């Protein structure tokens, strides 16, 4: 046989074998992808799942990048320096405003949030939201000189009028730490509204306004009310809680120079209306609240939105020194909305209370006071004005840039590159999609709107299909969910692909589905990029308190207080085993309400469960205790009826201590190191 014939034969055999393998293999792969995505046409590209969703290892490191994610910023009194908080970069970036170059990168704590400068400009204070402290930075030496302990999740910062006290808004523990700067010690904590963030001292230096993001927890059916906390600077006590009705997510606050008006960003959710309403517009509206301080403190709410165009996820708000314009960042649509304050004054001065009430839901009225929506880079968050008010600096979080806008011409005049990675990774693209409302009908909202900080907004929604008023569900956190399928309370989606694929557009966005490229990116971000913060409030270092240890024993118990064996399916640990505290199965725990379809519920994971009230699928339990005191009395959601109050408290203490396995591993390594010095 000729050599060539031999080769042909060999190739032939290989070809036949290849074909024999390829067709069934392809079929198998198709079936695999179809089952994971619940579609039939997702491209068969192994990398889209198996590469981009890698969380650890060299490949993960190679395909991902360390971004800076500028979040908030401050401008020095002379306007020469910008101090930019890089949330993912864990640093304060010192930027020369003139040359637009980064001069210095000062390492600070975990997940820094806000920055404020002392009046002499010598010091900067930066809140580290995931470190529960404030870094004190000497700006001449460009280094951290002190770390001040705060409450849980420090965010917004303000200095007292005399500059002697620092107010730190603790976003997770919902209070404000008052720190005596001369001693570097916290002297008291003032209770605020739920999940506060922004804080600002009024121009006359008498009061501070503190915004809250989450609404008060109320039974489903009652309107949303969120508190704005007013602190008296001289008494250092809360002097008032103002109710922002039918609104939440007040991220930041600004005052007019005379102090007569306070502006807060806000979202008006329509969570009580069945989600079918999305098609008619009106699921979420976005705007601002005005506290008319001279008019008995009356509260007015106006929208940024227009018919057919929404300006989702307002975040930052600043007012020019002349008091003429307010700038509000609409982070979900990459726009800065410019509000003409005189027009607002004219509008509200003539309006009766009834008219104002209709204004708050009127999409047609914003044209009277919105001058422009200035486009920006991805995800504009924090805003700062130059001291003369001529320049507006915008932290473009997912762009790693600072946009510079001329406040007269309302044009972007420059873009300061902070030096983050140039390439956009798949996960980064996913994060941009997550934070962008472009995929929702008329840009009404993005994933982030109901999942702020990629967590959850604490509201209960009527996620109905055709049956209105049925199946109300509490928003679930997306933190660390990659390893805890299935998804949805009903557990019908086995993968994030399915969860965010076809049905997502049918039920939620009411637009075209994500392209597969986008879907891959979104899934990559959700699986790899959303983490639980450390549980610094209840379990900072992995060493459980005595109460938590007792609670753990109850959680893991197999016999009740009378020595009777608890059936295996009625023990906490059975359905909620470590590390995620879910068995990833569906269960019946006697929580079905009349408006629920008769289904089983997905066993939720319990990491950082303390941060996700209300509880149960429809949010009926305002606190963890209520799961067993008000509800679950039939002992179907774990045997609890025999417990003493001490035991329930211990169990709750333990549940609050649960945290991401990531930290468990870290701490156990740390302890290991401690125990074995060699």
């Amino acid at each position, binding site marked *: 046989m000729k050599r060539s014939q031999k080769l042909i034969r060999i190739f032939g055999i290989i070809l036949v074998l290849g074909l024999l393998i390829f067709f069934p293999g392809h079929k198998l792969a198709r079936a695999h992808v179809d089952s994971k995505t619940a579609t039939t046409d997702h491209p068969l590209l192994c990398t889209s799942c198996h590469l981009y969703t890698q969380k650890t290892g060299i490949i993960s490191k190679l395909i991902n990048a360390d971004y800076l994610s500028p979040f908030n910023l401050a401008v020095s009194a002379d306007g020469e320096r910008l101090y930019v908080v890089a949330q993912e970069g864990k640093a304060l970036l010192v930027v020369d405003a003139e040359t637009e170059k980064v001069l210095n990168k000062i390492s600070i704590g975990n997940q820094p949030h806000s920055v404020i400068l002392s009046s002499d400009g010598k010091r900067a204070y930066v809140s580290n939201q995931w470190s529960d402290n404030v870094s004190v930075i000497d700006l001449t030496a460009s280094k951290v000189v002190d770390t001040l302990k705060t*409450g849980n999740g420090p965010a917004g910062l303000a200095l007292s009028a005399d500059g002697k006290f620092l107010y730190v808004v603790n976003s997770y*523990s919902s*209070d404000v730490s008052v720190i005596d700067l001369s001693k570097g010690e916290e002297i008291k904590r003032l209770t605020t509204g739920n999940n506060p963030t922004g804080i600002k001292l009024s121009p006359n230096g008498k009061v501070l306004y503190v915004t809250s993001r989450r609404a008060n927890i109320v039974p489903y059916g009652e309107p949303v009310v969120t508190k704005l906390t007013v602190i008296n600077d001289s008494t250092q006590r*809360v002097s008032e809680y103002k109710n922002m009705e039918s609104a939440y997510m007040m991220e930041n606050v600004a005052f007019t120079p005379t102090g007569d008006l306070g502006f807060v960003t806000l979202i008006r959710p329509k969570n009580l209306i069945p989600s079918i309403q999305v098609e008619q517009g009106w699921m979420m509206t976005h705007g601002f609240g005005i506290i008319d301080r001279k008019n008995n403190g009356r509260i007015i709410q106006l929208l940024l939105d227009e018919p057919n165009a929404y300006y989702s996820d307002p975040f930052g708000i600043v007012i020019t020194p002349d008091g003429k314009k307010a700038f509000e960042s609409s982070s979900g649509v990459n726009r800065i909305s410019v509000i003409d304050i005189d027009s607002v004054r004219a509008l509200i001065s003539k309006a009766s209370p009834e008219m104002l009430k209709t204004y708050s839901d009127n999409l047609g009225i914003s044209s009277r006071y919105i001058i422009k929506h200035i486009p920006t880079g991805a995800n504009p968050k924090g805003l700062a004005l130059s001291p003369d008010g001529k320049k507006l600096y915008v932290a473009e979080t997912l762009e790693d840039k600072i946009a510079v806008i001329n406040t007269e011409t309302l044009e972007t005049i420059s873009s300061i590159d902070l030096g983050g990675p140039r390439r956009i990774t798949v996960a980064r693209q996913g994060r941009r999609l997550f934070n962008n409302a472009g995929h929702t009908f008329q840009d009404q909202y993005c994933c982030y709107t109901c999942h702020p900080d990629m967590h959850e907004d604490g509201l209960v929604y009527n996620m109905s299909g055709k049956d209105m008023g049925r199946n109300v569900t509490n928003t679930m956190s997306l933190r660390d969910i990659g390893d805890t399928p299935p998804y949805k309370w009903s557990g019908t989606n086995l993968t994030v692909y399915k969860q965010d694929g076809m049905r997502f557009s049918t039920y939620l966005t009411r637009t075209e589905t994500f392209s597969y490229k986008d879907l891959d990116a979104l899934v990559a971000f959700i699986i790899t990029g959303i983490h639980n913060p450390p549980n610094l409030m209840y379990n900072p270092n992995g060493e459980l308190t005595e*109460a938590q240890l007792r609670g753990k024993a109850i959680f893991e118990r197999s016999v009740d207080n009378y020595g009777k064996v608890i059936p295996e399916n009625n023990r906490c640990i059975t359905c909620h085993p470590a590390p995620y505290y879910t068995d990833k199965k569906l269960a019946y725990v006697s929580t079905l309400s009349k408006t629920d379809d008769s289904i089983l519920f997905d066993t939720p994971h319990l990491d950082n469960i303390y941060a996700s009230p209300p509880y149960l699928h429809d949010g009926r339990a305002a606190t963890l*205790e*209520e799961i067993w005191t008000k509800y679950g009395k039939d002992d179907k959601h774990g045997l609890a009826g025999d417990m*003493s*109050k001490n035991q329930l408290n211990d169990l*709750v203490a333990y549940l609050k201590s649960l945290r991401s396995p990531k930290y468990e591993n870290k701490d156990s390594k740390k302890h290991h190191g401690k125990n074995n010095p060699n």
Partner: protein
Amino acid sequence: MVKITLIRPKIMRKTTQRNYLIWTTIAVIFLSACSLGFILIKKPVSSLNPVPQTKYSTSDNTGAAGKNSGKTDIKPDAKQMPVYGHWKTFTTKDGLPSDHVYAVRIDGKRVWAGTHDGLAVYEDGKWKTYTTKDGLAHNGVLAIDVSKETGDVWIGTLGGLSRFSAGKFENFSQFDSGLPNDLVYCVICDGKDVWTATGGGAGHYDTYTKEWEIFTEKNAPMHEPWTYGVSAGDGKIFIAAWGGGVIEYTLKTKQFKDYTDPDGEMEIDLLPDDGVVHDITTATSWSDGILWVSTYFGLSSYDGTHWKGYFDTNSGLASNFINFIRAKGPVVFICSDNGLSSTDGKSWVTYKKNDNNNDGKAIIKNYGRNDDSTSNKTTHEIPLSPSIGHNFIIGVDADKDYLWVATEKGVSRGELLK
């Protein structure tokens, strides 16, 4: 009686046979009357316990009270003991939600009163009421304290714990929080910590960490979780445990210590100075190095070494049935069921109201106890017109100028007489 029966035969001799029966009948009736007398006029049982034998002098201006109504000319005899006069009583007519007042607490220029039908605050000469409609946990308000740091008002009610902050209520119940029980008999603020005495144990709430701790018979030296009073001082928390004496909790070491009546019997106090006078304690208050403990059976003081017992029979205490106490500086104010007393252990001032009018008196004793070595034990009565609103006192608070008293007939305010 014996004498009469001896005389009777002599008289009988002079009477006719027919009268024998009449006399016998009379004798029987007489005997019956005497016997009834024994039944009805028994030896006063209070004599079982020694009555103080002290020199008792009444001041000269007794009876003048009615003439100078609204004014009382008092020159306090007792050294250092503050005396309060010019009493004014506020009732539902003045805007209180109920005359049955459980608690009173001074908060700077404001005064809070807890009543059976709501919380009331006195400010700028007016009372304002808060009820469940305003968000209060329950209308029955048993205890009030104000955080010095935050100004938050913590309110113990018959149906949970409320925090009143800047016009808004936030509620804690046994079902939605770690609060041990919804019946909150006492609440106090100690720095960042809030302590409650409830029917289901003592509760400690850390306002920083939002964590609850419960202290019951399971983790503290109590027989049962029935706590009634709580106070703070000297780095310690003092819990009045109903039937369990006083539970002392040292904040630094987290160690417990209990003080019970050493005789271990409910029906006696073997020795008055061997420990707390009775295990059914109702309140504790620590000030100036002295722990004061009230019971329904008398008052105790403890200076860290020695206990001392005070009863209505051996001191100036108005009554042994004490609802509540509050110590301020060296003085403890004692809310009894039959008058308000105050003492520094060396002398007494007791306020009483007359049964039939609004007047009353302050009784001043210049000794702490009958067995004190002071030679010249004197007692003065000083008329008050008007006096406190009612003798059944449930709550008290004092600042440098005023004494506020919660009674079963309104809130009374007395001015310090200089």
